[in-house]
Structure formats: C-alpha cells, structure tokens
C-alpha cells in the first residue's frame, strides 16, 4: 500500500496498465511532454515513449475519433478530455460511434477505450470548467459511466475501465484531486494523506464496474451519491445528526441497483444528490428506479438535491454548489415527511 492523491492514483493506474499491456496508449491535449494540465499523465511519456503517450491537436472529436480507430485496430486507448466541459465537440464520436460500433458491426469491431475527463465545480472555474455531464452519457446505450470518489477507487476503477471490452466514460471529480472535499470551502482543505481511502495498492488491482459501496451505514434514510457529493453527504449526515446510509455508487452504468434497493427497503427513505443540473440529471433516473422498485416501502417522497438549472456561475459558485447545508435540509425534510 502507498499513500496517493487522486491524481497520483489515476497516474498509477495508467502506469500499471501501460506496463502490463503494450496496447494501452494515452493521449490528449497537453498530455504528453507536459503531463496534463492536472498532471495526471506526468512521466508517462518519459517512461513509455512518445508512441504510447503523446500530445494531440486541440480537437476533441479528433481525439475520440482517432481513439476509436485505434481501438478498432486492437489498441486500448485511454484518452483525456481536458475538462468534461470540452467533450461536446466529441459527443458525436462518443454517442454515434464509440457506443455503437460493437452493436452495429455485430461484434466484428469493438471499442475498448476509456475517456477520462475532470468534472464538477468548486474551483472557481466558471461555466466551462465546472460541468458534470454524466446524464448525457448514461442516456446512451453502449457506454459505461464511472465516477470515483477517492484515490483507492480511482485506481481500481480506472484499471478495470482500461481492461473493459467496451467504451467507458471515466469522470474525475476535480475537486477531489487533492483531498476529500466535504463541501465546506470555509474549512481548511484536508489532504488524501489524512484519509484511509488515500491508501492505495501500488501494483495492479481492479475494482469491478457496477458495484456500489456503503460509505456510511445508517437506518434513517438512504443517500445516493457519487464523486464529490459522497463527501458532502457524509458531512451533511454528521451535521444534521441523522443516521443516514450513504451509498457511493461508483459506477452509474451499469448500476448496482441491488445495493440501492436493499438499503432503501431498509431505511424507507431516500435522498439523491448530484452536482449536475437538476432537470433530467442522473438523479431523475435514480429516483425513478427507486420508486419503481421500492414503492411499497417508501415513507416519504424521494428528494433530489442538485445543481440549479442555470449555467454554473463563477462568483456565486458556493451559492450554486449543492453543499452540506442543502443536503442536510433535504435529510431533515425527508425525515419529517
């Protein structure tokens, strides 16, 4: 075991994968010589050469499009989109191509690739460095969508994603890169070196996609969260002094519905939290599934706490961010319903 930040864990996952399988190639904007604007790929070019880790022109459709061609050839590209906010120019290649190549060719061609992208706000990045577009991927048949909440999971899930036979969208909550952010910007930042999940196996280890984990067992209400919101939810539960069961989904698709349903059937209440805008967010899917599966057990409406339906503002970031106060309010509201 070693102590790693989330950046180091992600880098370690790529390093391990590149060492084990020479088909793994890594590329993206500023990813090669410089090692990425968040330094996630630092050192990989030096270690594995420019043919396996390289800089690209600034064209996200080209990055994903060439990666699809490489995957069809037989490589396993693990590519970086500099910010999730910049994936839109690649959306056609992701949705119409990567997601469908196995299906439309009846398995003649496949598309094992990982598209990494930093998501979420909390760094005063304004509307184009803060978005959480996961629902735009979960709606697309043929994609898998993963969102880790800590260094340990980030490494295990990224290795599993690279080894997966299908395209995986790997969303990295950038507010967690350096520490387990609980949604209180007024408090001193803690670092992963203080956190048990900053302890990460050094070598190869894979966490299966599609398994959620209970971060905090509880009996009063189930909170479904992923990424940064896991820590916010934990903080809210403490502050509201509510015995919430906090589930970290880790993979949105495939989803670990079993764990969710078991918990809600036990607690009989549910709150769903995400940072993306509310309307048609992934929370809506969670609410739908929970009410379909647990209708007869529910004692209160399932509540959603999410980003407001506005672009992510710059100066009002902390008014916008669904922090512990808003989550706690929802917990209380659910308990009182």
């Amino acid at each position, binding site marked *: 075991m070693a102590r790693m930040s989330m950046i180091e864990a992600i880098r370690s996952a790529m390093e391990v994968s590149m060492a084990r399988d020479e088909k793994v*190639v890594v590329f993206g904007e500023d990813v090669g010589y410089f090692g990425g604007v968040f330094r996630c790929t630092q050192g990989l070019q030096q270690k594995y050469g420019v*043919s*396996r880790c390289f800089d*690209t*022109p600034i*064209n996200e*459709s*080209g990055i994903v*499009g*060439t*990666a*699809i*061609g*490489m995957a*069809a*050839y*037989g*490589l396993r590209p693990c590519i970086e989109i500099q910010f999730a906010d910049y994936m839109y*120019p690649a959306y*056609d*290649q992701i949705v*119409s*191509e990567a997601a469908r*190549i*196995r*299906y*439309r*060719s*009846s*398995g*003649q*061609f*496949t598309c094992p690739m990982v598209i990494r992208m930093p998501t979420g706000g909390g760094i005063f990045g304004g509307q184009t460095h803060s978005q959480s577009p996961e629902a735009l991927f979960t709606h697309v*048949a*043929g994609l*898998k969508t993963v969102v880790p909440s800590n260094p340990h999971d980030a490494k295990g899930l990224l290795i599993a994603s690279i080894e997966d*036979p*299908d395209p995986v969208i790997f969303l990295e909550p950038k507010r967690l890169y350096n520490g387990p952010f609980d949604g209180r910007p007024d408090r001193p930042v803690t670092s992963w070196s203080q956190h048990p999940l900053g302890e990460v196996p050094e070598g190869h280890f894979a966490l299966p996609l*599609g398994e959620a984990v209970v971060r905090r067992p509880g009996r009063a209400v189930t909170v479904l969260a992923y990424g940064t919101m896991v820590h916010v939810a934990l903080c809210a539960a403490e502050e509201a002094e509510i015995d919430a069961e906090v589930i970290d989904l880790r993979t949105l*698709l*495939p*989803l670990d*519905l079993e764990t969710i349903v078991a918990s809600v059937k036990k607690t009989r209440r549910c709150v769903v939290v995400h940072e993306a805008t509310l309307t048609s967010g992934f929370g809506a899917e969670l609410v739908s599934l929970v009410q379909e599966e647990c209708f007869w057990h529910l004692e209160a409406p399932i509540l959603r706490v999410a980003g407001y339906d506005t672009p992510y503002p710059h100066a009002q970031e902390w008014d916008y961010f669904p922090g512990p106060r808003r989550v706690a309010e929802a917990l209380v509201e659910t308990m009182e319903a």
Partner: protein
Amino acid sequence: MNEQTAASLSFHVPEPEVRPGEQPDFSHVQIPRAGSVPRPPVDVDPSEIRQLAYSIIRVLNRDGEAVGPWAGTLTQGELLEGLRHMMRLRAFDARMLTAQRQGKTSFYMQHMGEEAVSCAFRRALEPGDMNFPTYRQAGLLIAGDYPMVEMMNQIFSNEADPLKGRQLPVLYSAKDYGFFSLSGNLATQFPQAVGWAMASAISGDSRIAVAWIGDGSTAESDFHAGLVFASTYRAPVVLNIVNNQWAISTFQGIARGGSGTFAARGLGFGIPALRVDGNDYLAVHAVAKWAVERARRNLGPTLIEHVTYRVGAHSTSDDPSAYRPKAESDAWPLGDPVIRLKNHLIKLGAWSEERQKQAEAEIRDEVISAQREAESHGTMHSGGRPSPRDMFEGVYETMPPHLRRQRQKAGF
C-alpha cells in the same frame, strides 16, 4: 478613417449552372488531356506538387488508349477482372433497386457512374489494409470478393444477415475484407481511419488505412479533424474524396464554396493532394497505387479527389428530377467508367462487344442466383427475420443487468 462608402452588402449563395428544364452544361469543367499530368516520385516534397490539386490525372484517352506517365500499372488480366468487378457492381445495383421497389428491402443506394472509384482502388490494397468507407463504396466489397449473397442478406435484413438486422441496408461491415463498419453519420469515419493508421504505425505494423468521404461531406467538421491528425502524425492513410458533383440535392459548389477544388483542401495541411478522373479505371488505380505506396513507405497521408458523377438518385428515397436536369448525366464529360474500360480492352484486342454481352449475361445469372440464395433466408417483408432477442445482444460484451431485465420483461 475608411475611404470606402458604406455601400450595402449583399448575400451570395452559390447556384448550379443549370436547373431542371434547362440544358445540361459542363463547359465550366476543365478537363486536361489524358496523359498530360506528370507522375512525381512518391517521396516528392509535397510543396512541389501543389498544382496536382488543380488538375486531373487521366490515363484513358478518347480513343481508348492508355497514355502518359500514370499508365501501365495493371496487366491485361487485371483489367479484364476489373471490368468484371464494375459490371458485377452495376448488375448488383440494378437487382437491388428492383428488390427495393418490390418491398424486399426498405432502402437502397446505388453506384451508377462511380463504379471505377472503389473497384479500381481496391486493387491497390494488400490483405490486412482497412477501408473506412461511405455507403457508396460497395465496389470495395465486390472487387474484394466479398460474397454478394452476404451483402444481400444484409440488405434484406434476413435471418442470415451478418449484422443481425441491426443496420440500415447497405451499411455493411466486413472486417475480414478490410471494410470498416459503416455509420449513418457522415464523416465520422475520417478521423477513425486516421486513428487506425496511427495505431498501425504505433504498433510497427505495415498495414495502412484508407478513408473515404463524399464531396458534400467534406464540409463536415470530422473531415478537418481527420486532416489535422493525419498531417500532424504523418499517418499511413490514404484520404479519398469522391466528388460525384452532388450531395443529395445540393451541387458541389455548396460544399466547395470559393475553392478551386476539393483536393486543394489538403494543401493547407502540407498533405500531397491529387485529382484523378474517377471514371477512368486505370487512372484511379495508378493514383491509388502511388498514394498507397507513400503510406506504406511511411511517407505519410495523401489526399485524392476522385472526379466523377452520381448518375442515379441519391438513394431510393430521392428523386433528382426535382433539382437537376434529367439528361445531365449524359452530358457528363468524363463518360461512363464501364464503357471506357470496355473500349480500352477492345482497343487492346483483349475484348469484344460480344464477350461483353456474354459477360453481362453471366453476371446477371450470378447475381440472380445469389439473390435466390439470399431470399431463401428471407427478405425484409417476408418471413425469416433476425430474432428480437438479438436486439438486446451485443450492446456490450456482457449484457448488464438493466438490459437483462428489459429483455426479460419484453418476453424475448
């Protein structure tokens, strides 16, 4: 500060020379003499051959002779086979158009007039090379000896369809024949081809990729993405533009704008760009061979504009008489690729009108018997369809729980 007066601007929209009811006119199309364009060495400095993007490489002259520096890349036997490929494609198209009218398939797209492009190009490739085609390059399959019956199974969406009914007719996929899965979305294949070529180079392989795109689709952004990546990484890829003058109802001027030629789009990327008479089987092959050799020798990408004409409708959903003169295709100055190659072979003394007739009959029989076999597996509107169960398979390698639930609930 500025001397000019504030005269009104006005809006310019390019228009074709003629519209329905008018006399077809191709006098604006400049066609160099066959044999007149030089053939540079494949390792030429791209900046020295910019003029090739503004000319047209041609081998067959009016008299059916093969002339000039691009001639001589194929043996007589190969030419005879090439003629047969084009005829087979044409016969195949004719049958499938009829099948569509009969309701045996929902949709079809033909190649009339453009047969030389894909058929001749295919000959310049090696096993293992990969095409990233559009829907109008079935000649790559025909000339690559992909079984016609498999193509028909796909077109009929029948129980033997290799794509299990999942794809629109003509959106083939044939990995073992170097034919990448066709997309319905235009131009996406361009950067994919470049990526495949990059992967081959990364892997120290010797296989190359070939990208295909239509004139209208060069306007798509992925055309640019492909060129940028091909240029930056000097990818071993041949980038083909098939300029058949039309993109559904819009003439090539809408995509080409103020540019001299489509080939010229490559010049800004330092990519050697050639234009070729796309109705000249010999010229297409010669240019393909040149570009393939560049790619194989690690000299990087080549852009080729194949100048041809879409004689038929865009697809079975289209009626071109609404937007262009009916007789326009007769006026097309580069002629018909099948007739031109036939005449060349007759000139060589290797062929005759009688043998042509005979070959036509043979090929028709061949196509009919393939169709008979395909229809035995069903057609779109008869029995013998892929199972609805298949619908849920292959979205992922392993079916995830939510799809299993959906299939179960569906009762398939």
